[in-house]
């Protein structure tokens, strides 16, 4: 185990110059005194399960070959554990993609539905695993931004919540993800404030005033809380927590991203919002055949979102992030994925339900492979980036690559999961784990938590949904 100080002086100086000095000085001192390098959790979600026969890898645990869908991960195979034989155990109400998303991310059964929203939109019955681990894992705590949530597409059939949120602070308390890379950038690196101040002193003043604005709101909030019935306290407390989170960021967060490896502000892109006038591409929601492809901009949005997350990791501005490619009811239209039709444009999720169409499995395979390719590029960039605390970023980041259903027919058994990561987070890479007797997905979370050093994390609370941590740790 290497926990020695390895940060380079030049990196520190440039980083410190560009970012909040106080925070960097603390980090520098801590690392110099032999503190453990940062550990990180990045949960990445891809939609609509997979086509198992094209996803399953072959070989033994240590001598194995990547499958067609997972082949793009070859460059990061050394940090990859394929989990073959996982079940999404999903008791409670909710639709396929809807409940799957909530249950995978919370690890507890759903209990009730949102009214409306399509009638199958379940509320989360507890916090999501990223927030849960954040709360009990010292190695994930202490950064300016406690956690970051991004999504690359927000379109759904009905205005449901469950498929569009990965993170929850508590029961039925979803955390809204940033939909545009520019928003993500602004959250992490700050763009301040009245009149677009440019110089350092003005920025510092603007930062101070924004904090004062938050403080003003906080006193108002506290007054409301004293008058509110106790049933409203949880909601108002969550608001206060949000105020504190933003205040912490203003105290310490970076002002420039260049030294964190992000030289330019992400370009303006049309967000994929669930509003009538701002739909991109096809003009309609759920349709198999589309007039306009949007896979390219989808990839761009993903890449830019990720560039901000990576920069935040580089400068240790956050250690917890969730990245969602799209809701499970994916409306992204892909060109050239349908067999034999290189110019046809097909929307992912609607076509996935043409069970009688023999070309659909091939289409789904192509799309899932497309996601593997883009995700792999991101993970490669973590692998190629030195971590201030030693090793590379992927060594010290655990990346569960999850989905919300096993297959397009909404079944939950034998679902495809992969975990990426390195020694810093306890992951023994280059492994094919084949669980013939099948394991619930919560066993993956238990192992992830142990690898991160989560305290007292021996159960997610529902015994019927877990058997014990997977054997994927060093």
């Amino acid at each position: 185990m290497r926990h020695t100080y390895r940060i380079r002086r030049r990196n520190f100086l440039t980083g410190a110059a560009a970012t909040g000095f106080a925070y960097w000085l603390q980090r520098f001192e801590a690392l110099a005194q032999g503190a453990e390098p940062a550990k990180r959790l990045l949960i990445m979600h891809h939609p609509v399960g997979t086509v198992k026969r094209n996803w399953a890898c072959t070989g033994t645990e240590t001598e194995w070959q990547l499958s067609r869908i997972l082949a793009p991960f070859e460059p990061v195979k050394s940090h990859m554990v394929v989990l073959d034989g996982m079940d999404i155990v999903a008791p409670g109400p909710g639709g396929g993609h809807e409940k799957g998303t909530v249950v995978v991310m919370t690890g507890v059964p759903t209990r009730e539905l949102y009214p409306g929203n399509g009638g199958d939109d379940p509320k989360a019955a507890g916090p999501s695993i990223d927030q849960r681990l954040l709360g009990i894992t010292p190695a994930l705590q202490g950064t300016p931004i406690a956690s970051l949530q991004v999504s690359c597409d927000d379109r759904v059939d009905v205005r449901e919540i469950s498929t569009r949120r990965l993170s929850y602070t508590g029961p039925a308390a979803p955390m809204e993800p940033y939909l545009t890379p520019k928003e993500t950038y602004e959250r992490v690196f700050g763009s301040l404030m009245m009149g677009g101040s440019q110089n350092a002193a003005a920025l510092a003043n603007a930062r101070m005033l924004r904090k004062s604005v938050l403080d003003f709101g906080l006193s108002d909030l506290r007054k409301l809380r004293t008058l509110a019935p106790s049933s409203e306290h949880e909601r108002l407390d969550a608001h206060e927590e949000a105020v504190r989170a933003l205040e912490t960021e203003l105290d310490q967060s970076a002002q420039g991203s260049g030294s964190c490896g992000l030289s330019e502000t992400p370009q303006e892109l049309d967000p994929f919002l669930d509003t009538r006038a701002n739909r991109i591409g096809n003009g309609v929601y759920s349709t198999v055949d589309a007039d306009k492809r949007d896979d390219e901009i989808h990839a761009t949005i993903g890449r830019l979102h990720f560039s901000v997350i990576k920069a935040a990791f580089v400068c240790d501005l956050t250690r917890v992030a969730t990245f969602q490619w799209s809701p499970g009811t994916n409306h992204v239209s892909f060109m050239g994925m349908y067999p034999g039709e290189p110019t046809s444009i097909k929307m992912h999720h609607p076509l996935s339900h043409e069970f009688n169409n023999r070309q659909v499995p091939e289409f789904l395979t192509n799309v899932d492979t497309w996601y593997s390719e883009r995700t792999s590029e991101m993970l490669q960039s973590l692998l190629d980036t030195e971590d201030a605390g030693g090793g590379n970023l992927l060594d010290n980041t655990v990346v569960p690559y999850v989905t919300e259903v096993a297959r397009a027919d909404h079944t939950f058994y034998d679902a495809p999961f992969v975990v990426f990561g390195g020694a810093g987070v306890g992951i023994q890479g280059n492994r094919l784990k084949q669980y013939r007797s099948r394991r619930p997905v919560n066993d993956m979370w238990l192992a992830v938590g142990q690898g991160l050093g989560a305290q007292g994390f021996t159960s997610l609370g529902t015994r019927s949904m877990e058997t014990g941590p997977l054997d994927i740790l060093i």
Partner: protein
Amino acid sequence: MHAQGLSRTTHYRLFRARRGFPTALLLLTPARTAKRQPMRPPRAIARGAGLAVALAWAAGCGGGSLGGDDGSPTTMDGPPGVMVPGVSGPGAPTGGQPPVAGDGEQPGGLPSSGADDPMAGGASGPSRSCARSLPAARAVPFNPRQYRQVLADLVGYEGADQGDLPPGLESDLDVLDRAWVTASVLDRVMREAEAAAESLRGRTADVLGCANLADTACLRTGLSGLMQRAYVRAPEPAELDALMELHAQALGVLPADGGESAALVAVQAILAAPSTLYRPEFLTPAQGDDMRVLSAHERAAGIAAFLLDSVPDDELLAAAQDGSLMTDAGLSAQVDRLLALPRVRRHLTGLVLNGYRATRVFESPKDEALFPEFTASMQASMFAESQRFVEDVLWTRGAPVSELLVGGQTFVDEALADLYGITLPPGMADAEGFLASDLPDGRAGLLTQASVLSGLSRTDKTSVVARGLFVRRDLLCLPKVPAPPEDIQAQVAEQLTAEATETELAMYRAQTQPCSGCHSQFDRFGLALEGFDPIGRTRLPAPEPIDLEGLRPLMGIVERPEDLVEVLVEDDRFTHCMAERLMDYALSTAAAGNAFCDTDALHAAVAAGDGTLGAVIHAIVSHPAFAARKEEQP
């Protein structure tokens, strides 16, 4: 294996002879081996759908009874009242992709049924299960659409994103649960508040009523006025002191621009303050042990959120301040005034159009090969018809809301006239090509308009389920039926791809457990509309009559769509349902445990009026649930 040594084909023939089953469906249907054994959906046998699960599902629908009091189980003998056996397939186009229950992705993104209510009540019959008659006092946050409107009303901000939300169209009677303010939400609010404040630059003095922004006494007064509008109450001195401290702090570090930048910081603080973001219902001390009456300001805030989609305007706020809003006459006068405002009418029209699915026409693509007429222009015409129709009923004529279902007149352009088979007199249309016209036989009101029917259809065929659920849930407010259990979702999806007409599939469900338990409660409504194709054209053969037996309090034989809508409006059922939906919207009582349930009193208040939307809204805002909150016991 087949019982009694009969071949599979023989079973099919016997079954067909006994049931008059359509041939197309017959070819998909395996024989059953015992009288009370469930007949599994096609292709379900290999997957082995569990009987226990199936029975549990049926039980969840109350054994097929609409009101929970019929008690007629739906076995292989079929549910009561379905009169369609023997109907030949109407030849609807088949193929293409069906939606799959469980995603809420019925045609055009139609919601599927949910599983949150036990069976209780009937159409306009008994009240919902009513654990408590008043909602609890809450902090109700503005949703993102409303917050933008709040910013527009308070400081005239017309943000760039405003275009995302065409007025009214994104309003929806189906209220989402109250949002939580997490870090990313607050981050967005801070940015929007900042942008809104910054938009005042150059006119800050005018808006705050201070020619000299360096005059802190005047500024305090101006900010106090803004605060009062935003908070919907008079600010306390301590709150103003804190605001002025913030202003002084800003004044010390921001450029010397006559105090404008510092004033804008104070404006931003007001716009992003929790008292602006939330509509609290607990500022008035409780009166008695179990309830608190909302103050005049809280009442004003509730009315504004309901009708203005924002904070109160000056007149409403004044009525709260002088107390007149707490009198029947004062309340009535304010509601009447608001209902005359164009923006309120637009908002309510949008709620109706969205709540009754007219807007779905834009989200319900059709197979171009089958329906080349369903162009973007045609969709716009369909929506325009509904919009004009709703405006005419609600505002131009001020007719009872039941006219929305039974109205015999509509507005068509040439394209729609062709679709409906109407001959338009030449030269009579308005500038946009529309003309008021009587509907042909077989049509009446929104339910038979092309926008609604298209939105309740699949890409290539109609949807008995979607149309039936729409009638049951959105027009009658009957309790939701549970979605098919996940164990049979895949089988359901496979069945939906079967080469069968909607009528045949409905027949199959009617004859099959566990399907019939729930489908008997809404499929019949959809079958009555099978005379309209996926884009709302009349088609032949006309659907067979349906018998409403087992759907009490509905009863009788429905032969034509006009008969169906007459049943729906009978005994004010539709009006009561609309009142309930609007009440839920007005109260933002999305959380199931906090749902409004005192429907009897609301129905009585509605019945006392003239049946117009105005009367319904008067009944809502006068209802105790709108004016009081249940006091939480420690």
